[in-house]
């Protein structure tokens, strides 16, 4: 499943950018027609999507097969 999460991340960013280009319009009055919300959302979602890719990579390598049971394993 790790590969699915890795591939999902760029798909999400692609759709966000595509939706932004499609919906931003000077004549529109809704939030989705304004550039500022899109800039904020894409700015915050890009690192989240990268996080999802890293999560996918860890999952792919089986790093979540056994979760740590004490804090010592996290250090």
């Amino acid at each position: 499943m790790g590969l699915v999460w890795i591939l999902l991340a760029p798909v999400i960013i692609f759709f966000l950018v595509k939706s932004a280009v499609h919906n931003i319009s000077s004549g529109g009055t809704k939030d989705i027609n304004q550039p500022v919300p899109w800039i904020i959302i894409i700015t915050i979602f890009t690192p989240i999507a990268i996080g999802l890719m890293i999560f996918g990579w860890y999952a792919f390598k089986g790093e979540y097969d056994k979760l740590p049971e004490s804090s010592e394993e996290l250090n």
Partner: protein
Amino acid sequence: MAASEKGIGKIIFSSSLGTLIEWYDFYIFGMLAKTISVQFFPAGNSTAALLSTLAIFAAGFLVRPFGALVFGRLGDLVGRKYTFLLTLVLMGGSTFLIGLVPGYKSIGIAAPLLVLLLRLIQGLALGGEYGGAATYVAEHAPAHRRGYFTAWIQTTATLGLFVALGIILLIKTNMSDAAFTAEWGGWRYPFWISILLVGVSIYIRLKMSESPLYAALKKEGTTSVNPIKESFGHKANFKMVLLALFGAVMGQGVIWYTSQFYAQSFLENVVKLEFMQNREILLWAIGLATPFFLFFGWLSDKIGRKWIMLTGMLLGVIFYRPIFGEMLKDANAKEWATQHDKKKELSLERSAVKSDTSFNLKTGLLIINHKDEDWEFDGNKFNEKKSDTLMPAEGVTMFAPISVMIDSTQFFVKEVTDVKPVYSNIQLNNSLKWKFIFLVWVMIIFVTMAYGPIAAFLVELFPTKIRYTSMSLPYHIGNGVFGGLVPFIATLLATTFTTDPLVGLWYPIGVAALCFVIGALYLTNKKDKDVND
């Protein structure tokens, strides 16, 4: 290290009260957004519009996670007690000051600028509060009751909404609309009330002592030197931050937002329920569902956190569309109006027929707007607004003079198009109202399942020295970003796919489903008995 039964009661009370007040402060801005925008962000001013957009989006999406990092770091460096005392002062102070900012009419562009600044401070403070309160309570609680005790903190977000709704309704029902919306009118009272609530909470929190686990680390000199680096720079811990976000908090955030906020906005804007009845339904549903946070927190101590949280998400995935669809079907004013034609003399009454019409010329057509009519059918009240469009006959290019045209429609008009009537201000009869309360209650039960045990779950996932930082960031990304995006994405979907009024629900359903799969695959149901490490 666990506190005594009496001691933990005080700890829960003082932590929860402050967190509840912070949520109250954050919500009143959103609930009074319409009035606030009239006072501070007038239509037609592009700078004010930009500042308004920033106040809405930046506070929730950018500043909350940033606040989680700033105050999380502080909490791991200097201690839980002083950090969440600071967030409380910042939140209370900025809320009170919003209530004191003169309107745009008085001080011009300085008004929206000040409000934006104060709103950003609110977002920052909220980002730092929750992690501190949850950590503080969890670090005092005995292992076998951690879920139950931290669930008290989990009730605060919903109770904050309850108190905000209640106070606004109370003020609104005791004054006229004009008095409420005036520049220095009643809408400011909820902001001023905040300073009293915060004062009491600060007094109580000052008497609290530091978390015993953190105090022990401090004594040993083993607190973290750089919690942000340790939380996100060390692979082993960063891995857990990602798992917390994608396997638990992301889904919980959309369930939380959809069941409480999107439900309210859906009832108001799609179902077209009357303002007061909409709030009344939400108040009842929240009041009746809140004890279940404690129940599921308690249950998570017995059977583990994982499957309770994931079941809440799965129920949302399965039942959101049927529940929202049922509400839309039940409050069907169009159907009630059709029934009228079938049984005119039975129970439908035209209570306030107004025969006046107004006219306007639009795109070469004459549109007659009939004045609103209030109707009643089986105890359900609603308002109907109709307008007719008159198409010009061949050779007729103008509809003037209007009075002549109206008197002689057969000469000038080719056809009359009866435009779809618009229904609004729906007031449900008693049985339907209780059905709606039940349906919203069911959705808030999903919230109590997904949200009730999550504080204990997050606390157990991270070690003491970086706990505040590590749990705050995924929490605020999950709730602030994934949850806060529900209305934006819902509007986006509704604009793209116009035929399905429930299309906006696919976003929370999709995110919750994804989170359910990730959580089911990778989370463990094991409880961490020892959070002292």
